[in-house]
C-alpha cells in the first residue's frame, strides 16, 4: 500500500507538484490520470525516492520513504519514464543485473528471471542482446527487471507509451495478474482508455493538484457526465463540448 500526503515539489520557481495526496491499495490498480505536464512523473519520482519532496510524507506498507529509502525501494518495482537497457547485455543479463542489485542470490535470480520470461512471453528474446529490440520488447525487458525481486508494490510511468495494440493488451493482462495476486499497482497515464480499461481507482491530477479521486462511476457522477472523457475534461477545468461558450 502506498500513501502520499500533502506532497509538494518545485524546481526553481516552478511548482511541479502542489499538494498531492492519495492512497493506492493492495489488490487494486490505481491510475494517476492527467494531461502532460500535470506532475505525474514528478509525483512518482518522489514515491520511488528518486526525488525528495519539499513537504509532505510518503508511506509504503507503513514505512516512511524519507526515513528508510533503501527499505522502501526493496518493496517497490518501478518502470520509470526512462527505461534504457544495456545494449551490449542480453535481456536475461539485464534482468539478472538488477536481481543482483536487489540482493537476490544467483539461484533466486535465475528462477525469478525464468518465471518473468515465461509470464511476459519473452522466451525468444531472453538470450538476445537488447540492441535492436523493438519498443514492445524493450518495455517487456524493463518490466521484468523492475519486478525481478517480486515487489509488493508496482509503480509504472506511462507503461503503454509507444506500444502497439497487441503489446498493450498483453501488458494489461499482466497487470491484472499482479492485481489478482494482491499487489498494489499504481500507474500514471494521460490516456483515458487506459484507466477505463484497467483501473479500479482513478486519481486525476491537473497543474500539480489532485482534482478528483474515486472509481470511474464516482467520477462520472461527480462531474455530472455520462462519458468518462467528458467527466475528465470537466474535472481538470476544461470546457466540454455542448457547454455554453
Amino acid at each position, binding site marked *: 500500500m502506498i500513501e502520499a500526503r500533502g506532497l509538494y515539489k518545485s*524546481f*526553481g520557481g516552478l511548482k511541479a507538484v502542489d499538494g498531492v495526496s492519495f492512497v493506492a491499495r493492495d489488490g487494486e490498480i490505481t491510475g494517476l490520470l492527467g494531461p502532460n505536464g500535470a506532475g505525474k512523473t514528478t509525483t512518482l*519520482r518522489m514515491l*520511488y*525516492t*528518486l*526525488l*525528495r519532496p519539499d513537504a509532505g510524507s510518503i508511506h509504503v506498507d507503513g514505512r516512511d520513504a524519507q526515513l528508510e529509502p*533503501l*527499505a522502501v*525501494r*526493496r518493496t*517497490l518495482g*518501478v518502470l*520509470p*519514464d*526512462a*527505461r*534504457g*537497457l*544495456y*545494449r*551490449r*547485455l542480453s535481456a536475461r*543479463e539485464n534482468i539478472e*543485473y*538488477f536481481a*543482483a*542489485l*536487489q*540482493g537476490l542470490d544467483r539461484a533466486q535470480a535465475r528462477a525469478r528471471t525464468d518465471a518473468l520470461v515465461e509470464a511476459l512471453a519473452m522466451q525468444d528474446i531472453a538470450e538476445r542482446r537488447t540492441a535492436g529490440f523493438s519498443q514492445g520488447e524493450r518495455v517487456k525487458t*524493463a518490466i521484468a*527487471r*523492475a519486478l525481478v525481486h517480486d515487489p509488493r508494490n508496482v509503480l509504472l510511468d506511462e507503461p503503454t507509451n509507444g506500444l502497439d495494440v497487441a503489446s498493450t493488451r498483453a501488458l494489461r493482462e499482466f497487470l491484472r495478474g499482479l492485481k489478482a495476486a494482491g499487489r498494489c499497482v499504481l500507474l500514471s497515464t494521460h490516456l483515458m482508455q487506459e484507466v477505463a480499461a484497467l483501473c479500479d481507482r482513478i486519481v486525476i491530477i491537473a497543474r500539480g493538484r489532485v482534482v478528483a479521486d474515486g472509481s470511474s462511476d464516482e467520477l462520472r457522477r461527480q462531474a455530472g457526465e455520462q462519458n468518462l472523457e467528458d467527466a475528465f475534461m470537466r474535472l481538470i477545468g476544461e470546457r466540454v463540448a455542448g457547454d455554453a461558450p
Partner: protein
Amino acid sequence: MKAAFTVFLKECRESLRDRRVLINSLVLGPLLGPLIFLLMVRLVVGRELEKAEQPLPVVVIGAERAPDLVDALRQMGLRQLPPVADPELAVREQRIDLALRVGADFGANWRAGRSAQVELIYDSSRREAQGDAERLRAMLENYGRRNGALRLLARGLSPGVATPLVVATRDTATPQARGALLFAMLPYMLVLTIFIGGIWLAIDSTAGERERQSLEPLLINPVPRDRILLGKLMATAVFSLASLGLGLLAFLLAGRFMPTAELGLSLALGPRFLLVALPMLLPLVLLVCSAQILIAAFARSVREAQTYLGLAQLVPLIPSVVLSVVPVKAQLWMYAVPLLGQQLSLMRLLRAEPLAGLALALSALATLLAALGLFLLARRSYESEQLVVPG
C-alpha cells in the same frame, strides 16, 4: 560492498563487449605512447646519428691542386665525388648538395705560407645541406688549425701565440642523465596510457548511462549511490591499469629499438622498471580515474564529457614540459604534488638512480588523498537530484 562488486562486474562485462573500450584500453592506450615516442626518437636522434657516422659525399673541384688536404678530409669521413662543370648551377638545381672548390692559386699560396682559399658551395635555405656544410667546415677548420700549428712550430713559435684563448668544455652529465633529459617526455607518455585506458569506460558508465536513459532505473535499486559509483570507478581503474601494464611492456620492447647505445646513453628500461613503475603508478591510476568519473558525471552529455576529458589529458603534460624546460632540483615537497611526484620518480627510475622511500611514500599518500577527495566530490554530484533531473 557486494553491490559495488556487482556494478563492477557488469561494467567490465559490458566493456569487454564494446569495441571502442577495447581499442582504447587495450590497443590505442598502451601503444600510442610508445609508438609516438619511438618515432620521435628515431626521427630526431636516429637521423643525426646516421649522418654523423655516414661518409659525407662532397663534389670536389680541383682536388689535384690539394692532394694532402683531400687525403686528410677523406680520413675525417669525406667521400669524394667527381667534379661537375658548373657547381653553383648544380647546387641551385639541387642536383648536388655540397661542393668544395680548390682555387687555381691554392698550391702557390700554400707553399708560400700564405692563406690559401677553398670555397664551399651550398644552399643555406636547405636544412639538410646546411648540416652537411657545417660538418665539412668543421673538417676544414680542423685541418687548417693543425697546419697552422705546424707552421708556427717550424718558425720556432709556440702554437699558443696564435690561440690566446682556449675554451674547455666539461659536461658533467653522466650518460644516463643525458639520456633522461632526452627522455623527459617518457613519463608523460606513460601517464597518457593511464588516461586513454580509462577514458571510454568513465564516459560510458556515467554520462553515457544517463544519456541512454538507464541511470534512473539503476538508481531505483536499493543500493546506496556511492556503491554504484565505487563499482564504476573500480571498473574504470582496472581498464586503466591494464592499459598501463601493456603500455609499460610496450615501452620495454620499444626500448630495444631505441638507439640509446649508439648515443652512448643507457636508459634503465629493464624488467625492474616495469616492476617498480606499475605499483608506483597505482595511486595515480586511481586519481586519474576518479577525475575522469567526476568530470564525466558533471557533463550533460557524452559529447560534452569527451570534450572535457580530451582537455584534461593535457594536464599531465604540464610537469613534463616544466621539467624538460626548467631543470629544477627535486625537493621533497615536490613529491607531494600528484603527477609531479610520479614524474620525478619515473625520471629517477629511468636514470637508474636510487629512489628514496620517504619520497615514494609521500607521493603515494598525497596522490591517494587527492583521489579520495575527487571521489567524494563525484559522490556528491551522484547524490544530487540534478544527476537525473537536470534543474
